[in-house]
């Protein structure tokens, strides 16, 4: 299943890209990101592990990223979230003068047709909402409006 969300950010392309690329900015802009380890980073490829706060327990996200500077970041989780077979996606960056359109896509596959009593469409809706929330957090962080959506 696929989802797509987008946001316009008023900042220079290099700055927007840098925030999505550098996990240190993730910790500052997304309050559910507790910690991360970057095992490999050559500017174009990354291997990482991130700990995020979840209602039930903290979740470890282990993944890889393929990066095209100022253009695209692709991500896949080598260990998908519980109950998911696949979790991957990308961010694409499109520049128009001083505004950057960030388009986030996620591609996922469930192990079973239901998850915690929710069907695939409900899960898709929840993930889409979460994806948009994260994009808005990045926007606010980059544009300098520090609003914590997770409080």
């Amino acid at each position, binding site marked *: 299943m696929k989802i797509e969300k987008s946001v316009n950010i008023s900042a*220079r*392309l*290099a*700055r927007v*890209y*840098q925030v999505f*690329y550098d996990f240190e900015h993730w910790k500052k802009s997304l309050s559910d990101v507790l910690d991360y380890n970057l*095992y*490999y*980073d*050559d*500017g*174009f*490829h990354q*291997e990482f592990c991130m700990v995020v706060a979840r209602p039930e327990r903290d979740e470890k996200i282990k993944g*890889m990223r*393929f990066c*095209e*500077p*100022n*253009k695209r970041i*692709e991500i*896949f989780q*080598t260990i998908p979230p519980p109950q998911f077979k*696949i979790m*991957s996606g990308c961010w694409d*960056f*499109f*520049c128009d003068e001083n505004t950057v359109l960030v388009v986030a896509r996620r591609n996922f596959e469930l192990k079973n047709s239901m998850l915690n009593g929710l069907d695939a469409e409900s899960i898709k809706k929840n993930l889409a909402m979460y994806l948009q929330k994260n994009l808005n957090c990045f926007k606010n962080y980059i544009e300098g409006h520090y609003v914590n959506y997770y409080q």
Partner: protein
Amino acid sequence: MIKLKLLEAFDKIKIDTVDITNGTSLVDGLGMDSQELIELHCAIESVFGITIQSDLILEAQTFQNLIDILSIHLSSCNDTSQTVQEENNQKQIGYEGWLERKMIINRPAQEVYKALHCLTKWVTYLPHVKKIEVLYDDGLYQEFIMHVLSTDDSILKVRSVRKIDASNQIRYFQPEPPKFLKHHAGEWEINVITSEQTELIARHFWNLNNDEDSITSCTLGITHDRVEKILGDHALFAMENWKSILEGGVYQ
């Protein structure tokens, strides 16, 4: 090279970089204050001939941070429709060393692509590959460990991550490169010449390992020329193998 130009920028503002390493802290290691960081920003813009947001430089903690920031910034482009050559130029800017080797294979491009794609068949056709452990494969991205016979008859385990997107490129990187390298990545490019002839290109990109606390390329006497020879020979060996297998009609 980015490092050399960065050192030039430091020299411009009279900061002593004699003992600098990639991990050197700008504040604690070089003793820079906020005014000097601002001056460094101006010096970088002057030496590189670029305009870059000051906070990107002011937020840098170490010399390596500056290299990383400039690597990304120098490849920035408002035109998103980049050619493969422009993308390669980016990589050449971002890595200290790179090489390219080409070979013509007298078989259709889709056969060459399939052979490179289907890594579980490599054990059958490539004598130096003893085992492939697939850790992840969703059809687009793969992570695997390849057990290869080394020149001294020992088995070398190489973990790779690949992206296979049905274009004419297969990109990969090694999260745990050989000890003399800090970074190692590469790509295969498969170009149609005719319906029965394919140009296969192998590219490698790398940064030497200069970290103080590990076995470094310097310790091992490894230079860029030596790395180019090692990886270049390996690329040609792999391509000659595939040429022989595919043109010999044995691949199924």
